[in-house]
């Protein structure tokens, strides 16, 4: 392809840059594929890495606290606190969360809300919706969430914006499933996003050791969830400030 008439340096030739383009693209794609293989094992629900919890995490209390070692906020899996008072097996929990996610997709929630920070900006982020202090306290939360989702326009607190959530005509089963999905979502380790978030007041995130064996038994393949996953977490969930969280992500690799 090179022109005989015009001398070009080898490093400026069409041929050289074609090879460069192919090599660079191939190499980067290969690195991405290798990283993808690794990431996919890490983000398996309930995997050893503990970033994405098993679905049965909805049987437990979930906290969000400052991790002093990592210098960012992390979710903590506390003692048993089954959703709607009903303890589920991993398979049942998965089916419930699955129904919830299907419902959230089917009702196109993401084009008003953000989910893990992605989506639209017309309504609040849902990442920590389960832990939002707006629900008042742990005891009232499930009831309030259910009431709200059943009839959002009537129960809307628009905080002066006038923006109400339209009635999605959710069935009772869909409401429960959506709440389960949100509870599971709040336990995903999102590298400290959102920063400085203060969860609603909840009971302790640690418990007496005797109930642990039973809990990890029921969870099957998942890691022992009954004890706090993070070594350095403190209870109760701190309301203290999270100074410069996220600003100190040094040496992340």
């Amino acid at each position, binding site marked *: 392809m090179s022109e005989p008439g015009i001398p070009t340096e080898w490093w400026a030739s*069409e041929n050289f840059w074609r090879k460069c383009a192919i090599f660079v693209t191939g190499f980067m794609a290969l690195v991405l594929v290798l990283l993808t293989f690794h990431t996919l094992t890490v*983000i398996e629900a309930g995997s050893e890495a503990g970033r994405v919890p098993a679905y049965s995490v909805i049987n437990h209390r979930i906290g969000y606290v400052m991790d002093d070692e990592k210098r960012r906020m992390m979710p903590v899996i506390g003692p048993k606190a089954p959703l709607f008072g009903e303890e589920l097996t991993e398979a049942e929990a998965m089916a419930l969360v699955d129904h919830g996610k*299907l419902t959230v997709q089917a009702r196109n929630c993401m084009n008003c809300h953000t989910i893990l920070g992605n989506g639209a*900006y017309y309504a609040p982020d849902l990442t920590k919706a389960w832990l939002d202090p707006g629900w008042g306290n742990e005891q009232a939360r499930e009831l309030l969430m259910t009431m709200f989702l059943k009839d959002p326009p009537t129960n809307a607190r628009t905080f002066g914006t006038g923006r109400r959530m339209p009635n999605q005509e959710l069935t009772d089963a869909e409401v429960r499933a959506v709440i389960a999905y949100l509870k599971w979502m709040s336990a*995903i380790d999102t590298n400290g996003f959102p*920063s*400085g978030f203060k969860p609603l007041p909840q009971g302790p995130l640690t418990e007496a050791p005797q109930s642990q064996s039973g809990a990890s038994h029921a969870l099957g393949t998942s890691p022992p969830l009954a004890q706090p996953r993070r070594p350095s977490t403190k209870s109760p969930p701190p309301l203290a400030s999270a100074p410069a969280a996220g600003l100190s992500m040094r040496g992340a690799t």
Partner: protein
Amino acid sequence: MKIGKINYSELSTAQKLSVKYFTVAMVLFLAQLIFGLVAAWQFLAPDFLFEVLDFNVNRMVHINAMVVWMLYGFIGAIFWLVEDESGVPLVGAWLANATFYVLTVAVTIVVLVYLFVQSGPGDAWTLWLINEGREYIEAPRWADIGIVICMVAFFYNVAGTFVAGRWSGISGVLVLDLVALAGLYLAGMFYTTNLPMDQYWWWWVIHLWVEATWEVLVGCIMAWGLIKTLGARRRIVTTWLYVEVALMFGSGILGLGHHYFWIGTPEYWLGIGGFFSALEPVPLVAMVVHAVYDAGRHSFRSSNHPALAWLIAHAFGNFIGAGVFGFMQTLPQINMFTHGTQWSSSHGHLAFFGAYTTIIVAFIYLTIQRLRGDVWMSGDLHGGWRWKWSLGLLHVGMVGMSMALLIAGYEQSFIERAMGGSTWQAYFDGQTQPWFIQAMWWRMIFGVIMTVGLVLLLVDFVKIGAGDDRPIRAVPSEAIPEPEAQSEELAEAAAGS
């Protein structure tokens, strides 16, 4: 060819297809702006069309119309250049025509279902028939499959034509890029309960389309355009295309990592994503050097002023929208506070417009010039104010809107993220601040300005060159006769057609 008249019947099959694709693209562009305006108005008057046409529906149509019209624009451009570049008539013309109608009918059905059915029960049927509920790729699964089939047909038309004719550097890159483009779409076509897994693959489609394969597609289209409109030498253009591919894919593929900061993926993505996306503006800056070099070496005596103006807008828009606005929030330390606020929206608006709208509009002007029988489109155009004003209004609207959103975003990250700790109360506190509300008003005003600009642009598309009997200004060739056998062939082919 009659100069100044519509010469549609004298276009080749592929060129006729381009005109069709561009027409639908412009209809969808208008739809994008109208639904954008409705959604913007709902920020100011939340009761407007409440439970009739809610924000999520308008916003979905707004962004879907954009994705689809841009794809239509790319397809149109490729059909326009495929015969010229390969030197033979389009292979599978009947199939190409059928694909256009099937695709357009499918898009229409999808939009109608979005508007009138809107959502469904939380089961797999909804995902198959109504809406997948995943931003940007909401199209239901049946449409996904249809899109893939249409893309395969399109790929057959394009690759088949090059196989029947001749290959070049540009067509080689183009065809490989189309394979990647279609292949990546498959990554967004499955359902999983696992949300991080879902978003992981979802970004493969969105990011690797928008920040990698689309960029390269635009590179191919521009390369061809430069040869045709400015008489740039093929060897040089092709070499630069390869340089661009190396730089774009070199930084863009792993730049994907900047979407993996907060979705549950491992911490190493903070480092990788931050690193490669910080590098992403460097190629954009470097390319500025080449643009200046080219502009300095060749006095621009363009044969198509509007197209050239939009190409320059492309160079600036891509650099500012993607480069400057992108880098501002690309490091995780900053992104933590800006991600998912109006900052993202500001960056998104400016980057999509600067990188893609501009280039497609430029290409449409080239198409119209040919459609009008190679009419004069240089200086002193009849009604030349129209293209200048539409260009100006669209840019004023877009820049104003992005700045308004940036201010809103700043306010949001301050009040909601930093002060309020991202609770719902904090979110709404941010949304009710006077700065935020004023920014939303300004966004609305600039949105209207942009819409006026678009209407004027569409009028100009219809009117430009009409009744003008001056022939196109001869393309100033790059002075040196092409020694390549390839370009002689091209010249013969051009003379033949």
